[in-house]
């Protein structure tokens, strides 16, 4: 037996015992909903323990005058390591709710902060308090838009009596800082927010919410009206790191397409690029994705990575449709922001996954001879069930491999690639 044979046998075993048609999603979906509930349940003894430990740690840290900043964001962790994050520890209480800003960080790519919301909620409530209608502005009147970079949140609760439950939740948010011009020494910011309600369960949940700990069964229903509590208003200043910016746009051409590197900003928390090009006509609903490599002074930083559109000041409800779009090149670049001289940023190719109606029709036509029916997935993509023999048995190995091969070939034919490279070489002041 050779390695190829062993691999094939392992695949045969797995395929025989785990059918292609299995579906974990309904169960996972229910568990995500239960999880949200359990995280803030008054019965959460683990949270009690964690809260006590955290309190002890905070007391100890306070006694030692240490600054503890918690974040899972790799870019912010690097900024934290260089003591670039500003502790705020600002709190405001309105009614049953206390909102606290723990820390803030600002550079030319993003402004990031972490807040904690604490309060009391009726124990039988099916809804939990959240921060709503928040806005971050500066003293120039500029509004910062939230971007999907870093971030994260969580929460937990501890019981106080039979009718109420205390809770604590937190979130880290990042805002697009590209609206800031020049290199101000600091930003004077104003954060405004309200506290509202969000349901434990989605309205389309199947009623599998379990118990809330008080004996009443969770039932999905619209959130009851709640007058937003607030506004909570915080005004504070944060040092601004201007990073290093591309001095002027650079354009490269390949395959008859001009791509302009409109901006390229290296800061302690991330590297971000703005690329401008006319989207080649293909699928109006599917933007082309750049795959890029980056090197500084000959040292590779990323290699053929799919750049992630972070939508910047664009609408997060749409995929990139404008000519110029911002992309995250790398998160966490402290070591890169001061030293490197020559940068080489290469767009290796543009790719799009074909899922137009005519693509699906073509795929169905190709695979009909194998009894495979392609089902489009709303929003793009497709799925299919692997056919069985008429008696329900599995296809033979040869038939199955031939079928998979045909599906691979047919599916790959739907993807479109425009090959570059578009290479930008530049120095950052």
């Amino acid at each position: 037996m050779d390695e190829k044979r062993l691999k094939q046998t392992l695949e045969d075993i797995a395929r025989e015992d785990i059918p292609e048609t299995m579906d974990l999603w309904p169960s996972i979906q229910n568990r995500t909903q239960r999880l949200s509930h359990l995280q803030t349940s008054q019965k959460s003894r683990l949270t009690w323990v964690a809260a006590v430990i955290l309190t002890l740690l905070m007391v100890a840290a306070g006694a030692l005058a240490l600054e503890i900043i918690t974040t899972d964001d790799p870019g912010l962790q690097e900024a934290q390591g260089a003591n670039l994050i500003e502790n705020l520890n600002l709190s405001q209480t309105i009614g049953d709710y206390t909102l606290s800003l723990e820390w803030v960080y600002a550079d030319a790519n993003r402004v990031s902060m972490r807040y904690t919301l604490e309060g009391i909620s009726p124990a039988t409530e099916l809804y939990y308090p959240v921060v709503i209608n928040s806005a971050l502005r500066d003293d120039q009147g500029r509004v910062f838009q939230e971007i999907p970079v870093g971030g994260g949140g969580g929460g937990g609760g501890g019981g106080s009596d039979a009718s109420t439950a205390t809770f604590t939740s937190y979130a880290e948010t990042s805002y697009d800082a590209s609206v800031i011009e020049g290199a101000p020494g600091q930003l004077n910011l104003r954060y405004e927010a309200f506290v509202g309600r969000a349901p434990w369960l989605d309205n389309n949940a199947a009623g599998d919410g379990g118990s809330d700990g008080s004996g009443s069964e969770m039932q999905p229903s619209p959130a009851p009206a709640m007058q937003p509590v607030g506004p909570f208003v915080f005004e504070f200043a944060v040092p601004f790191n201007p990073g290093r910016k591309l001095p002027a746009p650079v354009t490269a051409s390949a395959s008859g397409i001009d791509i302009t590197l409109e901006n390229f900003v290296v800061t302690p928390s991330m590297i971000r690029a703005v690329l401008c090009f006319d989207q080649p006509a293909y699928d109006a609903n599917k933007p082309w994705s750049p795959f890029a490599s980056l090197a500084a002074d000959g040292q590779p930083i990323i290699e053929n990575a799919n750049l992630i559109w972070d939508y910047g000041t664009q609408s997060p409800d749409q995929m990139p449709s404008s000519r110029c779009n911002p992309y995250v090149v790398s998160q966490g670049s402290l070591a890169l922001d001061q030293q490197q001289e020559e940068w080489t940023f290469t767009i290796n190719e543009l790719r799009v996954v074909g899922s137009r109606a005519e693509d699906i029709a073509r795929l169905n036509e190709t695979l009909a001879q194998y009894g495979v029916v392609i089902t489009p997935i709303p929003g793009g993509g497709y799925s299919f069930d692997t056919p069985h023999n008429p008696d329900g048995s599995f296809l033979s190995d040869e038939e199955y491999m031939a079928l998979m091969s045909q599906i691979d070939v047919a599916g790959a034919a739907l993807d479109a690639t425009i090959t570059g490279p578009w290479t930008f070489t530049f120095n950052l002041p």
Partner: protein
Amino acid sequence: MDEREALARLKRGDINGLETLVKAYQVQAVRAAYLVTRDRAQAEDIVQAAFLRIYQRFDQFDMRRPFAPWFMRVVVNDALKVVTRHRQLSLESNSTENQLSLEDLLPDSSPSPADLVEDAEMRQAVWDALGNLSPEQRAAIVLRYYLDLSEREMAEALTLPRGTIKWRLHAAREHLRTLLRPLHNADVEAYDEARP
């Protein structure tokens, strides 16, 4: 929605992004976990928990890296942890000297024994042999030969030094060779007689 969109949505906390990833990778993930745990229900639980953890802690995922290989490593590692909680381990091999290929270690006669047995019997023999490996050895085989990971990637997946990975793979392959030795026999009858 393609994977890139799904990841971007998941980054924003949009559960629709998770759904796309579940639909795309659940089967391969459960199959990989199953090969380690040998228990379908347990494998499904492990994969569900892994997806839930991603939903909760997506920030730990470096979006520059391909999602699927990273996720499969997480799943196999989780499967290994679950199995080793319930099983007594027995790692016997002391030999780490020679790095031989599987082709060197497994029966490799001419004609191939694979030509002499039916596919179903081969599957059963390999399945039985895998069951006699330690969970660590089984995970090594799954990572290397089912998921096609390199030794470096395996070291990352199991958070072990590469030397340990080399040794574990070597031990697993040698153990497999011993277990599959009956396939050396020249005919199916001899192979059948040799089976317990």
